[in-house]
């Protein structure tokens, strides 16, 4: 390489980098913006740690959460039982991990259901004019329902028949997930409908329509990718509210059965003995709060990162 080549190569970036940047996907920009939100980054770290503890933890800490050891009841913190044992001598660390698995999977599944419902209804209402009236009236009707009392009702009334047909664990899981999903899709539907109404008037939709794109492909190729960011944000926040709802149901004694721990259920069981063993209340409560807090911070960061008006500033 000659001297002049080197010089030009060195000179090039200063002039050219302004006009040319290697192509990169939009998601790298989103990640760059997300990284600047300190709270979101900490939230993501904590959430990943909690997930890891729940998924990998039981492989390392192999005591069964249901194993009853009557000789080691009500033990404090020790090497054998880092979080102590409960009134039946069950290891609390193992129960916390098992409970977290249920709580978080309820949160994720219920969120997925609610996003699916909300997006479908929102897109249909926004895209097809004749469906808008009935679908949005239905949304308004759902918004006017007293949700917590109805959830309580649904869970109490259908707990026994569903446990009979799907087994005690599967039945309750199905019931709680579908109950939470069916009562939390309305906000997503409203947001998505608003976005779709705006998108429909844009030129690229007109262009796509003028080359004869059928409605089905129009929605999947052009509409859905463009409403992805609000959906992602409300999905994140949906996990948080689903976890809170599930633990509230468990706390009221209307969630999962006692031998099937979730964080809410552990808290509920510990309330009776909180004077003697406050740590048993604090541990699941802190777990719920930390998870929800971190998920909320992730949602906050995502909202900023996915907003192109803020991004790159």
């Amino acid at each position: 390489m000659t001297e002049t080549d080197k010089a030009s190569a060195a000179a090039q970036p200063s002039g050219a980098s302004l006009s040319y940047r290697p192509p990169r996907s939009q998601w790298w920009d989103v990640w760059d913006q997300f990284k600047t939100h300190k709270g979101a980054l900490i939230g993501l770290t904590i959430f990943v740690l909690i997930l890891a503890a729940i998924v990998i933890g039981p492989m390392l800490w192999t005591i069964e959460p249901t194993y009853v050891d009557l000789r080691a009841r009500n033990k404090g913190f020790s090497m054998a039982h880092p979080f102590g044992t409960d009134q039946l001598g069950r290891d609390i660390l193992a129960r916390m991990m098992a409970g977290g698995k249920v709580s978080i999977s309820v949160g994720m599944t219920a969120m997925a259901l609610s996003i699916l419902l909300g997006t479908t209804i929102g897109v249909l209402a926004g895209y097809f004019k004749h469906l808008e009236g009935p679908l949005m009236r239905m949304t308004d009707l759902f918004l006017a329902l007293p949700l917590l009392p109805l959830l309580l009702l649904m869970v109490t009334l259908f707990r026994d028949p569903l446990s009979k047909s799907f087994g005690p664990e599967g039945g309750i899981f199905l019931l709680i997930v579908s109950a939470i999903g069916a009562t939390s899709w309305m906000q997503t539907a409203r947001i998505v409908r608003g976005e779709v109404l705006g998108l429909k008037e844009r030129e690229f939709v007109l262009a796509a329509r003028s080359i004869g794109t059928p409605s089905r492909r129009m929605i999947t190729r052009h509409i859905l990718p463009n409403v992805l960011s609000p959906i992602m944000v409300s999905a994140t926040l949906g996990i948080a509210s689903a976890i809170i709802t599930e633990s509230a149901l468990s706390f009221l004694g209307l969630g999962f059965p006692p031998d099937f721990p979730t964080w809410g259920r552990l808290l509920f069981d510990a309330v009776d003995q909180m004077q003697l063993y406050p740590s048993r209340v604090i541990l699941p409560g802190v777990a719920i709060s930390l998870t929800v807090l971190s998920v909320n911070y992730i949602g906050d960061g995502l909202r900023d990162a996915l907003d192109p008006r803020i991004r790159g500033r």
Partner: protein
Amino acid sequence: MFTFTLRRLLIAIPTLLIISLVIFLLLEAAPGDPLGEVPLTVPPEVKAKMREALGLNSAWYVRYLLWLKQFFWVEPVHLWDALFGTSYGEGMQRVISFQSRQPVMQIIAERLPQTLIVVGLAYVVGVLIALPIGIISAYRQYSWFDNIGTFISMIGFSVPTFFTGVVLIIVFAVKLHWFPSVYDTTLQVTDWASFKAQIRQMVMPVTVLALYNAAQISRFMRASMLDNLGQDYVRTARAKGLTEKVVVLIHVLRNSLIPVVTVIALGVPTIFGGAIITEQVFKVNGLGQQLILSIHANDMPMVMTLTFIFAILIVLFNLVADLLYGILDPRIRYD
């Protein structure tokens, strides 16, 4: 404005009817038996008589229409009687609780004050905390006050009320013995000492609910203030030499309160939902606790009526929020 109000009121009627039907059918579809608690030794013919006495033999639509009549006609007539000492309602069948054989409305009237005092006070306190916090964090955006405020309100709506309640009980009732952990509803406020006892037992439930409400409302207040602080009229107000206090507390505050007031109105029904949990934590015998008890006991008339009252509150306050928005903001015209 008048036609809008009228139209919204007319829409509210079918909405409420559909909601009541949904709740009724949900209860109907349930396999729970209100006689499930009756001992097995009771002979079947007696059980059949009991079912008949509870009105369970007729078809569901007959019972639904009967309930509608009782709720919308008989109960208001009884309320009228109770208020003015008349006796138009004599001999009319009221909504009767399966569990206690008392008229449902009587139980609700007994329990309503506890819920209203605790929940209502918590909401007022929450709003009073939230507004100044929202104003200051918007005015000093990204200052340490704003950062701490953001963090605390994030915690406020991430930490579930049943956990904050239990933690407060452990710290202030079990360890420090400052406040009683159980709400004593038999307490009569007669003198200074009982008044102090009443305040002491209300501190913790009110704090829990107020923190939760304040977290959400302060966020709205901050966002709304930020929207307005960047507007042109603020610059104009400063340019003509108004003091900073007048600009912020009169011009900006009044404009940014418009959306916040509607949010506050919309939040009123949800606090009754939140009260269900808080009442359970502190053993306040209010409406929320009654709902849980009735659900466990399969007391269908009670559950139906309570849930429907919650629904009425939601529809009513939605309407109030819309109307307030129209009244407060001259840019919004509904006609």
